[in-house]
């Protein structure tokens, strides 16, 4: 698949000296859904704002569909739709007028038929002549999506699409994203809900303190989730894995016990053999427990490591 968005060495330092982004590199494939996970203040919105042209980068280069986003800004921005985090809408306008305005801004001729199609996709069609101020919060969010989609972008940015949204609407939103993917739109969403990233994304990126810590296929991450650990506490603490047990993937824990990593989904975990070999090696067990790391753990560990 072709790269549709390429972010290279993008930094952002604000006037006060605060460095919001520290050399971000990111490549987005056409048609994928990437979830950018990160705690508040990690730089998610700053990164999106720079890509979309709302803020300027201090350094670095961005290409969108091969177009330089500063030099060929018209061609680059034509490919992008942005759904901002805040519900920023003209309260007195009707839904239809507001979406028409957005389509016009992107240089597209008026086409109410196309706009109505989009409104239908978002279950907004019956509200098209309503003033925005009369809509519920969830409906307003849909209007924002309609405004972002009305010029048929190739890449859609959803900045915290489900922040402050009830469970039902969140599920709706996931469905909308899935439908958009079917139509070939590349979606980049930011979130701090891990569940959301798991439900929607093909790849997951973790950003913290202005740096991308990892970008990985979701499935690979899930595989990591499949990893379980058997914690073996010993009567007498040790400081190295005994020679006799070197064939097992063992590490020594902080308490002088052993940690055995295994794949819980595999048919053969190797635990029985390990326990027999432990006795053979003359080690006495005090306690056994297992632990499964979640995406949340991975995320928290990464962010913590980064903070240290």
């Amino acid at each position, binding site marked *: 698949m072709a790269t549709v968005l390429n972010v290279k060495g993008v930094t952002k330092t604000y006037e006060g000296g605060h460095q919001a982004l520290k050399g971000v590199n990111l490549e987005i494939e056409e048609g994928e859904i990437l979830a950018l996970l990160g705690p508040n203040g990690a730089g998610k919105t700053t990164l999106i704002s720079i890509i979309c042209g709302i803020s*300027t980068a201090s350094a670095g280069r961005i290409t969108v569909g091969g177009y330089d986003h500063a030099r060929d800004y018209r061609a680059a921005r034509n490919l992008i739709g942005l759904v901002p985090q805040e519900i920023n809408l003209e309260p007195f306008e009707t839904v239809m007028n507001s979406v*028409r305005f957005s389509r*016009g801004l992107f240089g597209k*001729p008026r086409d109410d038929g196309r706009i109505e199609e989009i409104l239908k996709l978002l279950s907004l069609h019956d509200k098209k002549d309503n003033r925005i101020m009369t809509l519920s919060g969830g409906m307003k969010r849909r209007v924002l999506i309609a405004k972002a989609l009305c010029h048929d972008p190739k890449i859609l940015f959803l900045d915290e699409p489900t922040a402050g949204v009830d469970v039902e609407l969140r599920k709706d939103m996931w469905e909308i994203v899935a439908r958009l993917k079917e139509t070939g739109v590349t979606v980049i969403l930011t979130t701090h809900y891990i569940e959301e990233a798991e439900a929607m994304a093909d790849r997951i990126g973790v950003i913290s303190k202005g740096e991308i810590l990892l970008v990985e296929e979701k499935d690979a991450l899930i595989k990591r989730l499949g990893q379980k650990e058997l914690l073996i506490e010993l009567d007498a603490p040790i400081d190295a894995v005994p020679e006799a047990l070197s064939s097992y993937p063992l590490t020594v824990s902080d308490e002088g016990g052993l940690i055995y990593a295994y794949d819980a989904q595999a048919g053969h975990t190797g635990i029985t053999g390990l326990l027999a070999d432990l006795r053979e090696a003359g080690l006495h067990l005090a306690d056994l427990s297992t632990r499964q790391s979640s995406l949340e753990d991975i995320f928290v560990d990464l962010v913590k490591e980064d903070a240290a």
Partner: protein
Amino acid sequence: MNWNAIAAIYRFEMARTFRTLVQSVISPVLSTSLYFIVFGAAIGSRIDQVEGVSYGAFIVPGLIMLTVLTQSTSNASFGIYFPKFIGTVYELLSAPISFYEIVIGYVGAAATKAFMIGIIILITAHFFVDLTIAHPVWMLLFLVLTCISFALLGFIIGIWAGNFEQLQLVPMLVITPLVFLGGSFYSISMLPPVWQTITLFNPVVYLISGFRWAFFGQADVALGWSVAAIVIFMAACLFTIGWIFRTGYKLRS
């Protein structure tokens, strides 16, 4: 040029005008009528003529300028400030449009509205006084240039303003006094000599004088100065807007 975008901004702004028709059009007409009743009829009946023109007719160009200047400034400043205030400015910044196209859309709409109001006041004036316009083409030219240049000023104010008070500040504290002291209701030759000199530092004097010349063929200052004043003012506004564009002042962080 992204003409569709300019048209979208222009239409969106004009739609606001028509949606708020009462404030937008009827209130300037009403206030102008009040000026005519108070200044034209009540006070004017005691003033014979100013430079050979009946006082009621004499104040028409000044009245139009008073309204057009405040309207074009406040329309354009509100037009760009409101998206900043409610946050919809993100759309303008992320759309494939240049800053100049944004300016053309907002300034064009604000100037159109001010121009319309100017014409409406002119028509209203016809009901109160007899008017013949000596140089109609010049009159329209002055009106259009004034609408555009003060809408440019308004746009700059809208970008600069951080709150609604600041938005009102310049129209209220600068423009209204300058227009009142710029010879809207009198000829500056009626002032004591010292004030005549001081008045020449007021740029609005040149606008009103030129505009009045287009009506009656008489001016406080030479026509060339009036044309120069408006060109210089417009150039200054365009220069400032160019600077805002280059630096992203208060728009792009």
